[in-house]
């Protein structure tokens, strides 16, 4: 029977099917961080259970870490306690732990791929919804809750009903300054934040084929924002080239065996999806959000939709605009910006900083904006320095912070103050996401760069020659 890419990875990982229930689903690689793991370890302790396969779990500190002065003790006692708990739990159970200051430390979804932990055909979970990022390699990767973290630690399995399958095709040629982030925000704006709930998405079409691995990661990362549990892209030569030689990637004979298997990981021609969508990539503009969920995005040159054109919850829409301090029919161009954040598991990789630098090179930071540039990992940070990007951004008046999730969820001190506006390359513009009362506009690193030097929402196309 013809199979989709998703079937080809899912089916061999089913340990047991439960009649009228979920599958017992085996997890190859498990990533943990300090926020969603402590209670899981506590559960193990209460049950008197050990971690079954410690070598399959990788720990990093990212959600709740400072992005300056990481060499000093963490000031917030609660954060410090969580970080210590991760370190102690990892040590006790023999799990690799990349804590603050470790050369491999960084955001969990950045370090997985860059260390070769993320591989095609693998099943990968983490107590974080943006685990979908790893689907860029043809892995099945999705976020889980803490109860499930405990399941994986103790038995390397979770209980999961097989989701339905959706394929999203984007074809055509992308316009100038349209990045993978814009493609994803466009899809979400068309589907809404619940349009893919219950589905696992495969992204197909030349737009994704033409993307770099980092671009594919950005797209897969945002799958959860359309409600999908995850998204994936069939591995190809770009994928294999990216993986080869990374620390945890297979080598020698194991590499050859893996390659033989990985090359089979694509959807059969006549395989069926429960839902199939097709979009024309050539109509996509640089995107920006105007509301309080990632589905509330429009092309940057457009105006905020009129309430009468909104399907469903008008009260929710009005609440959202009120929170943002916007009105229907407002133009987004020229909107006030107080903060710019470049970073997160969505856009905290080297290509994102290259994009940012391409716009700000030879220009100056706008005086009215505070700009936080936060690399996704130490490896990204090192690349920024080695490639001369640090020089470019320094000359333009910017500084670079240290790796972590930072203002994406504002668990640490990187909070946007109440009422202030941020253009952010992260993934969620929910009320208070970037700090109580903070107002977030999601956008690409190019749009973020344009805001950082002009001080208002600006179409990056006017700054590119």
């Amino acid at each position, binding site marked *: 029977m013809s199979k989709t890419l998703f079937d080809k990875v899912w089916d061999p990982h089913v340990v047991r099917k439960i009649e009228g229930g*979920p599958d017992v689903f085996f997890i190859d*690689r498990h990533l943990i961080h300090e*926020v*969603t793991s402590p209670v899981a370890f506590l559960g193990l302790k209460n049950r008197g259970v050990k971690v079954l396969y410690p070598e399959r779990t990788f720990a990093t500190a990212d959600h709740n870490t400072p992005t300056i002065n990481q060499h000093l003790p963490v000031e917030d006692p609660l954060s410090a306690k969580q970080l210590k708990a991760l370190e102690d739990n990892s040590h006790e159970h023999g799990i690799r732990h990349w804590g603050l200051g470790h050369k491999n430390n960084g955001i969990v979804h950045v370090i997985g791929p860059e260390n070769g932990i993320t591989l095609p055909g693998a099943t990968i979970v983490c107590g974080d919804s943006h685990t979908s990022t790893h689907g860029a390699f043809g892995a099945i990767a999705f*976020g889980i809750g803490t109860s499930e973290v405990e399941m994986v630690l103790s038995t390397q399995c979770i209980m999961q009903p097989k989701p339905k399958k959706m394929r999203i095709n984007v074809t055509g040629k992308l316009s100038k300054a349209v990045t993978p982030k814009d493609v994803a925000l466009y899809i979400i704006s068309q589907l809404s934040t619940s349009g893919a709930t*219950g589905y696992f998405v495969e992204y197909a079409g030349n737009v994704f084929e033409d993307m770099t691995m980092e671009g594919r990661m950005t797209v897969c990362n945002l799958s959860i924002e359309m409600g999908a549990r995850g998204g994936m892209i069939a591995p190809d030569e770009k994928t294999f080239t990216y993986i080869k030689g990374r620390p945890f990637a297979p080598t020698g004979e194991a590499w050859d065996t893996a390659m033989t298997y990985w090359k089979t990981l694509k959807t059969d021609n006549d395989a069926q999806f429960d839902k199939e969508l097709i979009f024309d990539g050539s109509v996509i503009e640089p995107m920006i959000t105007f509301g309080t969920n990632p589905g509330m995005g429009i092309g940057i040159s457009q105006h905020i939709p009129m309430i009468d054109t909104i399907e469903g919850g008008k009260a*929710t829409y009005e609440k959202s605009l009120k929170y943002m301090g916007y009105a229907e029919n407002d133009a987004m161009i020229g909107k006030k910006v107080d903060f710019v954040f470049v970073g997160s598991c969505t856009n905290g990789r080297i290509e994102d900083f290259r994009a940012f630098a391409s716009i700000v090179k030879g220009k100056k930071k706008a005086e009215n904006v505070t700009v936080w540039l936060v690399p996704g990992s130490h490896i990204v940070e090192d690349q920024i320095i080695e490639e001369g990007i640090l020089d470019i951004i320094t000359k333009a008046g910017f500084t670079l912070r240290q790796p972590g999730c930072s203002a994406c969820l504002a*668990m640490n001190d990187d909070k946007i103050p109440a009422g202030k506006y941020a253009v952010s390359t992260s993934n969620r513009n*929910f009320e208070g996401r970037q700090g109580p009362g903070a107002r977030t506009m999601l956008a690409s690193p190019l749009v973020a760069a344009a805001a950082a030097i002009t001080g208002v929402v600006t179409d990056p196309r006017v700054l590119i020659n």
Partner: protein
Amino acid sequence: MAYDKFNILKSTAVPLPLENVDTDQIIPARFLKATERLGFGDNLFRDWRYNSDNSPKVDFVLNDPKYTGKILIGGKNFGSGSSREHAAWAVYDYGFRCVVSSFFADIFKNNCLNIGVLPVQVSAEFSEQLFNAVYDDPTTEIEIDLVKQTITLLSTGIQESFDINNYKKDNMLNGFDDIDYLQNIKGEIQEFAKGLPL
């Protein structure tokens, strides 16, 4: 963590008819710093419930003494966003045992089932009827019968059935959790793992 068995729940309900209520609203990230599962109910809907000086926002439903009970009725796409199980813990810890919505986000729904909060998905029409009934009379009781998989508005008798898979239903009726199940088949899992490429 084992939880209370769920069988029949008869209770008044708290209405929250907003759509796309995300888990950052249910429990903001700054309250995720605990290393134990304690006290999350205090911060349920923190920023909708309290002003920045910690005084209650009088217009938020949880601060309205008219509305109480173990059932939370939410709008469409309830629980979207972050996978934080803390959101489900906050709902449970506050005292809710059931969330009713016309549509749930996946991970939140799963997290609820794993910790003993029953997510009951109803039609948009039924959800509307529930909201109207509770707004008309906050003492209106709703009955949720897990064995029969029905939700009934007791004042009018209107009823709808809801879906839950047999495995999860059995777990909730008995207060079992998935880890109990998985622990029992550990040998089978280890045998299975030997045949995997990774």
